[in-house]
């Protein structure tokens, strides 16, 4: 069934990739930039039919074609309230990335823009795929362009950072593949909506959850699987950091929402205390380490670990407010951290340093810049009136509803966020410059790519209702299904004995 006369999602996924091939026929760097900019704007226009999204929990814009019949593989796409925001975010981030690398990228422009477009295709595929293998294909395909973005256009230590990124994420996702195959063997299908209807045994869920959760936790990244992230962020060029922060990390939390909760509800419940503990550890650890950074980019990178901790915490509260907060935080973090990375790139282009001590007193020379920085910093620490507040407060409410004990841990987390953000902002705005520099303020291009996120920061912060309308039905359905199926499984299953006995059981199992 097609909601529209033409396949919206396929076009959205395929267009950047096909257009990227056109880059090979271009020569001048400037032409390459204009071309990619045009492609990214056309991509935004192509997304207009998504406005026809109906406010319910169904998968919409569904496309389904047989791919490999014998193995039940399907080319199966569709989006619901959880994925549509991520799809829109991905599409919106693309032109910003092109703009913020306009003067930043000084070599191999063609390949750089090819990687950007390729990655956009792959990430869109991840958020649209409703077939497990298709999901995995897109999930892996995105690794290569990201690897190149870091390894070719990154900082001095780019080799190490890119290799670490690649190995970490790929090692995690091979386990995801094993889980996917296990789902097929046990459930008989790769179709995610079909699998969502099934009740798997607790023992199966236990292992499937662990395999999937590791892959997702590395991607998020959750403490202690986060070590690739600061390295990758610091070394990546601005656009790479923006994409990494804005959309790639969301793939992990999206995985939790799309797979762990619906497919392995009982195991999710079983592991929730552990996941919550790790999330809190991420929040506190990320905040504390960020506080001690002297490199702005590293600071924001570690703050990501903390922010994403709020997201995973919200998800594993299994509470309406918590999950909504998590979804909002995913969106917010994409907008705010993306914008922060773009601004760090802008500063770096002027001072050629990311050290806080080398970028003091910007308020005097770059008031417009500091305005945007201040706004994003406030959004990042969850100031009322900004989007960060909406997400964070929902997670807070959810946490306190579930257990005040959990809620208590979030308070220092939020305080840490305020501390490191104020610290860096104060220094950058009013610190005493080490040498008298006259830096020019934002140019028109920078105004454009900072205004867009700023508008969203205030829009979501002041009037979040439209966004709630989109996500609410899907979150309702997710949690209702979750409650029902969690109970269904637990009632019919005997409790787990020990993990060791189970490993032996699985190994000895024969047909």
């Amino acid at each position: 069934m097609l909601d529209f006369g033409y396949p919206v999602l396929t076009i959205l996924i395929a267009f950047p990739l096909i257009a990227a091939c056109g880059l090979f026929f271009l020569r001048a760097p400037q032409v390459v930039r204009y071309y990619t900019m045009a492609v990214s704007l056309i991509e935004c226009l192509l997304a207009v039919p998504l406005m026809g999204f109906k406010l319910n929990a169904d998968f919409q814009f569904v496309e389904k074609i047989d791919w490999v019949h014998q193995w039940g593989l399907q080319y199966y796409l569709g989006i619901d309230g959880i994925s549509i925001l991520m799809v829109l975010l991905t599409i919106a981030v693309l032109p910003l990335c092109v703009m913020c690398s306009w003067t930043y990228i000084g070599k191999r422009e063609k390949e750089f823009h090819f990687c950007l477009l390729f990655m956009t295709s792959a990430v869109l595929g991840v958020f649209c795929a409703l077939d497990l293998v298709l999901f995995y294909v897109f999930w892996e395909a995105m690794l290569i362009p990201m690897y190149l973005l870091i390894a070719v256009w990154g900082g001095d230590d780019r080799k190490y950072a890119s290799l670490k990124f690649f190995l970490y994420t790929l090692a995690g996702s091979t386990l995801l593949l094993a889980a996917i195959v296990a789902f097929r063997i046990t459930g008989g299908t790769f179709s995610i909506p079909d699998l969502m209807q099934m009740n798997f045994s607790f023992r199966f869920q236990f292992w499937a959850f662990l395999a999937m959760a590791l892959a997702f936790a590395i991607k998020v990244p959750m403490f202690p699987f986060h070590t690739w992230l600061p390295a990758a962020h610091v070394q990546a060029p601005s656009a790479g950091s923006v994409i990494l922060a804005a959309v790639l990390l969301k793939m992990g939390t999206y995985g939790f929402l799309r797979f762990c909760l619906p497919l392995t509800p009982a195991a999710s419940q079983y592991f929730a205390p552990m996941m919550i503990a790790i999330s809190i550890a991420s929040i506190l650890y990320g905040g504390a380490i960020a506080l001690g950074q002297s490199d702005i980019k590293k600071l924001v990178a570690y703050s990501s670990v903390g922010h994403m901790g709020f997201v995973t915490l919200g998800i594993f509260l299994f509470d309406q407010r918590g999950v909504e907060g998590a979804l909002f935080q995913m969106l917010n973090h994409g907008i705010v951290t993306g914008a922060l990375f773009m601004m760090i790139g802008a500063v770096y282009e002027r001072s050629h340093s990311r050290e806080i001590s080398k970028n003091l007193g910007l308020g005097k020379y770059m008031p417009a810049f500091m305005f945007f920085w201040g706004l994003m910093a406030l959004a990042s620490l969850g100031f009322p009136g900004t989007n960060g507040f909406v997400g964070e407060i929902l997670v807070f409410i959810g946490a306190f509803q579930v257990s005040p004990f959990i809620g208590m841990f979030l308070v220092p987390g939020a305080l840490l966020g305020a501390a490191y953000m104020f610290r860096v902002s104060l220094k950058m705005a009013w610190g005493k410059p080490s040498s008298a520099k006259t830096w020019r303020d934002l140019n028109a291009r920078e105004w454009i790519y900072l205004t867009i996120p700023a508008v969203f920061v205030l829009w979501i912060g002041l009037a979040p209702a439209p966004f709630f309308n989109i996500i609410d039905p899907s979150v309702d359905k997710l949690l209702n299904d979750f409650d029902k199926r969690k109970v269904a499984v637990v009632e019919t299953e005997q409790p787990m004995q020990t993990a060791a006995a189970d490993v032996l059981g699985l190994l000895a199992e024969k047909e």
Partner: protein
Amino acid sequence: MNFNITALVPELFFLCLVLTLMVQSLGTREWKPPVERWLPFGACAAFFVTITGFHLHGTMFWDVYKVDLMSQFFKIVITFGFYVVVLNASRQPTLEEGKRADYYMLLGFSTFGLMLLASSVELITIYLALELASYSMYAVIPLRAKDKGAAEAGIKYIMFGAVATALALYGLSYIMATQHTTYIAELMNKSWSFADQPMAVVGLSLFLGGMFFKLALFPFHFWCPDVYQGASNETAAFVATMPKMGAIVVLCRLAVLLKPGLEITTILAVLGACSMTFGNLSALAQTDIKRLLGFSSVAHAGYIMVGLVSGTPEGIAAAAFYGMAYLVMNLLVFWIVSRVASDGRNLKLSDLNGLYKKAPVLAFSLAAGAFALVGLPPTMGFMGKFFLITSAWDHGYNWLVITLVVNSAIAIYYYLALFRHAFTEEKTPSQVAPPDNGWFASAGAGMLAAAVLVIGMIPAPLFNFAINAGKTLYGISVTFAGGGH
């Protein structure tokens, strides 16, 4: 003797090709036959003749020779491989002018042996075909002018080959003595449990050893990296791919004897697991690209075992499909190795530095090949691995599947090194011959890379073929027109 000449058209066509080469190789030194002018067309024609014969079937020569879907699948793969190898070798710089026709003749005979191997359904016939495929290789490997390593490689290959063959023959005698038949179709109905027939199990293990040698499966893999390193790049491309197809087809045929849980199946599974692990771990430390590929092929031999031990038509189909994928991916990588080493030297990883600048098409194709070997989507390597995993999961060898998955993660490091050097390293070593960046090099690499990607995205037609072939081995009737969709 039943004999159906139409079913043998691909083999006969190929035989004519090889005989023509033989006649040419008899020419005197003064008369230099322009073999490289016509042979690619001949090899291409052989490939198309084999494709058109995909539906042929029949049993002949007292039922020792069977033309069925499985044999045709592999014959298509083998003739395709031969075509690419001929194209690849046509610019071989380290081969003396006077030896060119002989060189192709030997490759041709070996390929012909592999084609026969694809159809052999009786152990002695398999043995003979295997020998035909091997003998020419013994002569071809040392053919690298002015290189001492080549002689060492040749000797290693002969010694290991002789021992493996002797073992296989010894095992064959055990099977004959205990099961009283050498026909696979009859062996299928015999017991292969160690408790019932210990001698037969030992015999089959030894016989399989001969195949494992060809496949470079642990512990029969020791020749592999040395021979790759010693042989010229183009010869290594042949040795790395074609004999493996012969081994895989025989293993696919013998896999119908294996049921999950039997001792012999477990031996295969354990060897597969060891092979993956040893291959990958050893490859991590390599800097010579051919040695790296040699150890990686040891790992790939292990992957193929995963499909074979599952005891289902799907498993055999997955192994066959992976075999094909392996051939195409490896030929692609060797194509690039041969083109980059335009003077025929052995490449170090650092020789790939800056390849994206000097030869962008080669670099892109290398990326496709390397990622296919890792098993990243959307390449045929991913699809092949995915089919293997899916077919074996839940058939008693889950641990083997996990081993495969973990090994894929290990393998990333060294395959990524190929990609890393080609794309992200700028410094190039001085005083080496630049890569061949002509239209021939780019077109060949581009087409093989396209095959790797397209089959990765649309694997269904070929996989249908493989699965129907797998079903025929188990005697499940298939309607070819149905095709699945």
